């Protein structure tokens, strides 16, 4: 067969090779290359779902903006080690975390922790807000559920390994409470016991309250 080279094809092929001939560390999406900076991976990979500034649009994906860096490090490492095995985490995060180095994980965590958390604009139900605030501030002592505020802080900002909850998507909070309550897929936290007595309505109330931060000012 006579081989006739198409000049357009050759041009494109040559350009492709020239342009792609070496690593592009500044804008790489390679999750298995330890030389790619954590911030680069945050912008090129994580941001697709969690947002460039960590304020994800879809409640399918948790907001990471302003999150406690220690908590983020713990979670990514737990995905990497498969210690955290909730279904959505397995489906989306195990693969991404698989080859990340400790340094990359720390850089990703620091990047998102440094982003300002944006408040949500959601319609609220005053009765539900009051119920949510009561659970958050005082717990359900008759059921043995301690106040959330004890670990997650007066403004829901979290502390160390305890995550920030303020402004988090309500749907995400509810689903994680269900994971804690129904499964052992997120071991190593007291949340199994904490969430055990919560009803669906109570979960929703506290989740809506947290999603609506800083609604607290309006309630006082």
């Amino acid at each position, binding site marked *: 067969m006579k081989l006739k080279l198409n000049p357009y094809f050759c041009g494109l092929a040559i350009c492709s090779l020239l342009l792609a001939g070496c690593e592009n560390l500044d804008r790489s999406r390679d999750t298995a290359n330890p030389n790619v900076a954590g911030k680069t991976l945050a912008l090129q990979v994580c941001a697709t779902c969690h947002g460039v500034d960590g304020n994800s649009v879809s409640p399918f994906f948790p907001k990471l903006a302003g999150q406690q860096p220690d908590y983020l490090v713990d979670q990514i490492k737990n995905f990497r080690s498969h210690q955290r095995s909730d279904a959505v985490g397995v489906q989306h995060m195990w*693969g991404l975390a698989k080859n990340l180095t400790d340094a990359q994980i720390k850089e990703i965590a620091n990047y998102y922790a440094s982003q300002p958390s944006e408040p949500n604009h959601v319609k609220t139900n005053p009765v539900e807000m009051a119920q949510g605030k009561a659970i958050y501030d005082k717990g359900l002592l008759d059921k043995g559920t301690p106040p959330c505020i004890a670990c997650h802080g007066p403004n829901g900002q979290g502390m160390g390994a305890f995550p920030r909850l303020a402004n988090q998507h309500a749907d995400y909070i509810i689903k994680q409470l269900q994971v804690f309550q129904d499964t052992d897929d997120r071991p190593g936290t007291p949340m199994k016991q904490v969430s055990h007595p919560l009803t669906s309505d109570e979960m929703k109330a506290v989740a809506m309250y947290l999603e609506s931060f800083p609604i607290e000012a309006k309630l006082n």
Partner: protein
Amino acid sequence: MSDFMAIKKSELASGHRNILHLATVALTLLLLTLATKTSYAIPAFARQTGQNCVACHAGGQYPELTPYGRYFKLTGYTQGERQLIPLSAMFVGGMASTRNNVGTSSDGSTVTTSNINQQNGRFEADNASVFLAGKILDNLGLFSQFTYGWAASSNNGGVNNQGHFGIDNFDLRYADHYAGPTHDLIWGASLNNNPGVTDVWNSHPTWAYPYMSPQGARGAFAGGVPVATYLESGAGAQTAGYGAYVYLNKNFYAELDAYQSATGATSFLAYGNNNSNPNFPKAYLKGTNPYFRLAYTTEWGAHNLMVGAMGMNAAQYGYNSESAGMVSGGPPNLSGGTTNYQDRGIDAQYQYLLNPHTVTAQVRYLKENITDNTIGGPAGNLVNKLNSVFGKVSYVYNATYGAGLGYQNVTGTADSNAYGVANTGLSNWSASANNSPNSTAWIPSIWYQPIQNIRLTLQYTAFTKYMGGTSCYNDTTQGNPCRKASDNNTTWLYAWIAY
């Protein structure tokens, strides 16, 4: 005629037993061996990212893409970890059953009957694909699919079930992504084989519901309306396309491609189609044929929306063996003029994605002007028009149970050479008595996905109009019995397996 009739993607396959075919079989076997050793027995992209199918496919409803899946494609299939052997395999097979499978032909005095689909009501393999797909370099990635169809051709010498191996999809991309707090820009370039293979929305005909149809005569009805525009027909899936695109701030998308005949170094983009194969002749385009795609996208909460536009001008040569109203393949007739297709369309897609619910909906309107300058070409009129409307909505629960409903409606200029009895390439059951292409189909389906690699689908294709008629659309002047549009209603139960 075949230019006007829907050339389903599954029909692109075929098979001569050549070296590449053997190599593909060997590689497939190798892949299957490897697949048994990995914890992620899923296609190449999933192995590359380490993620589940649902990360990129809405509710696991491949090929429909999530926003993340669209991003993965737009950034050149480069996210994740490069694989040593980036191969995948796919199989589709099942049972198609048409309500009235008895076809007739008449010489004016004697009516002869024969089954339209020889395999009606039997389980059959339809097609198998091998994918070479994945990250090559930080900015370079590939999605390619080659398909073998067990019954890709049903009319080669009257032999049914003739297999064929050929190219299905090819998209080699270079892409870069600039992300920052105030801007977001993805740009890229692609070498591809089909206008639309580059697209990331499932309102584009290349990736639209019902995604698949059975092969050859088995697929005569299951895929829906029998007439399609150039962009819908897949007729361009054997051309050489050079394109570039930008996606700005996750809002504005623009793409421009130029398509040419796949000859010389790019002839692999038409692999399986050649001048000596009357059933799978290679398509020859005149010069450079432009294709454009525009889209606006937005998202709020768990919802996302796209509204877009697309268009193509294609000038395609006929064939030397062409007779009035029938394209029978063979070498191209490069001096006989071209059939010019001018397609313009608008489309939209909506998605709601929040576990355990997935709702997706697509609509599309395509308008086509066909100017047939060929001598004795596929159309009798110099200018024909086609209008095609498509809509579909589907729901998936927990990425496991799904249901969808599709709608297809095509209307156009009556043309005896293209759609009527003057087209000797059409059977009594496929030719229109009033020379009209007007057809309407409803396609409901339900599916079950026990694991992410396997989907079992029960699909029904119901025609309320077929080739211009409802109760007696076919030609009866020579004694053929009347055929109703609903006689063509077809049930297809099939499995789609991917590893």
